[in-house]
């Protein structure tokens, strides 16, 4: 294994331009089951952890900027985030436990592209934009256009995520529900982030499709003012938006039913 240790972002981007290295942030995804992972241990990495310019959370007129090394714990300890974007804190508190929150980054969660992620759905519900940079250019991609399929993204091999930005807008509704096998330290069997602003409703679901997804059919119905008498009434719409499967952790049927039920109750409580 080889690890490059750039001292600045520019150096890091230069490394990436020269070779398709694997970026290493908090390591809480990359190092799982590390000892037996011969393939990963034969890889070539670029360590971002020392790049202080990527650290921290900034607030400006346009909104909130999570640096690429901003961790869950950074968000949990930020009282303004707690007030303005409570679902970020709710989601962060449900990511692993303190040992993961202290090292896991929002950007790592985004790039890792797990359909069961907890950071991604709340960011997506708040219309987050992913800021990508390479040695030659910078671009911004809305998070809901970042994923191209199961664990694939639009990120090119020479790019780093340098920040995740959230627009400044009042969100009248912010709800996050994570359904795991236990209360703490669990991978979501179903995740739901719900938000409502002047941009309309956002309904984002996790663990029910190859990527975290916006449920646009449901959003459209809510924007049109449709009402639903029972959770089951949401199922036909949800089936347009999600495609849950059976796996080691749960069943497709459970995921679909429970998504409908938590969504229905969340809408009812938001009303």
């Amino acid at each position, binding site marked *: 294994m080889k690890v490059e240790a750039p001292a600045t972002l520019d150096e890091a981007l230069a490394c990436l331009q020269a070779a398709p290295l694997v970026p290493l942030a908090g390591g809480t995804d990359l190092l799982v089951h590390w000892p037996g992972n011969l393939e990963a241990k034969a890889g070539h990495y670029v360590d971002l952890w020392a790049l202080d310019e990527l650290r921290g959370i900034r607030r400006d007129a346009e909104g909130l900027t999570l640096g690429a090394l901003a961790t869950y714990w950074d968000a949990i300890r930020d009282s303004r985030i707690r007030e303005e974007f409570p679902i970020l804190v709710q989601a962060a508190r449900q990511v692993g436990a303190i*040992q993961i929150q*202290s090292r896991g980054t929002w950007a790592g969660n985004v790039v890792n592209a797990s359909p069961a992620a907890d950071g991604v759905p709340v960011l997506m519900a708040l219309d987050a934009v992913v800021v990508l940079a390479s040695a030659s250019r910078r671009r911004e991609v809305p998070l809901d256009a970042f994923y191209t399929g199961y664990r694939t993204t639009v990120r090119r091999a020479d790019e780093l995520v340098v920040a995740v930005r959230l627009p400044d807008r009042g969100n009248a509704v912010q709800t996050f529900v994570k359904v795991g096998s236990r209360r703490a*330290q669990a991978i979501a069997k179903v995740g739901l982030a719900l938000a409502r602003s002047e941009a309309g409703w956002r309904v984002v679901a996790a663990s029910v499709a190859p990527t975290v997804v916006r449920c646009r059919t449901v959003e459209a119905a809510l924007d049109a003012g449709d009402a639903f008498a029972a959770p089951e009434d949401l199922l036909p719409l949800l089936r347009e938006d999600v495609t849950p499967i059976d796996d080691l952790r749960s069943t497709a049927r459970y995921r679909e039913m429970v998504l409908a039920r938590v969504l229905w109750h969340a809408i009812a409580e938001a009303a």
Partner: protein
Amino acid sequence: MSPERGSYADPAVDYHVEIAFTLNGAEVRIRVDPAERLLDVLRYRLGLTGTKEGCAEGECGACTVWIDGLPVDSCLVPAVQARGREVVTIEAVDPMRLRPLLESGATQCGACTPGVVMTALWILDHPDLLETHTVRELMAGNLCRCTGYDGIVEGVLEALEATRDTEREPA
């Protein structure tokens, strides 16, 4: 830097790098293989076997140490990332601080205990955490199969109570 593709696991090539960091208050300088985790360096290179490995997947917390004052799972930290940081392990803990935990039954087999202690002492050092969190939430990253957690939670609460009492007493 070397731009070539391929496998970086050639036994004939030496990939070691030298890193320096503060360990339990003292400066450490050591050559590490980048594939080594902080846990490996602590246990197998530096002989600090107090930190335990229970899962190698960040679930059990037996490998908890502090980096720059925050609890982390050392099984998920590449050793090279310790560079320039301040690492504290169970070996640095003052045994007197363990008393309330011992008395409340916070340990049985002891396999989880080094990690439990590192998280528990971090809570005790930051009592303001309990304004937003419960002890049970903060301890959730340390699995214990023996105690059922009551002994641990009570130990932390009693130790907090004891510190408050001593603080209240005029010096």
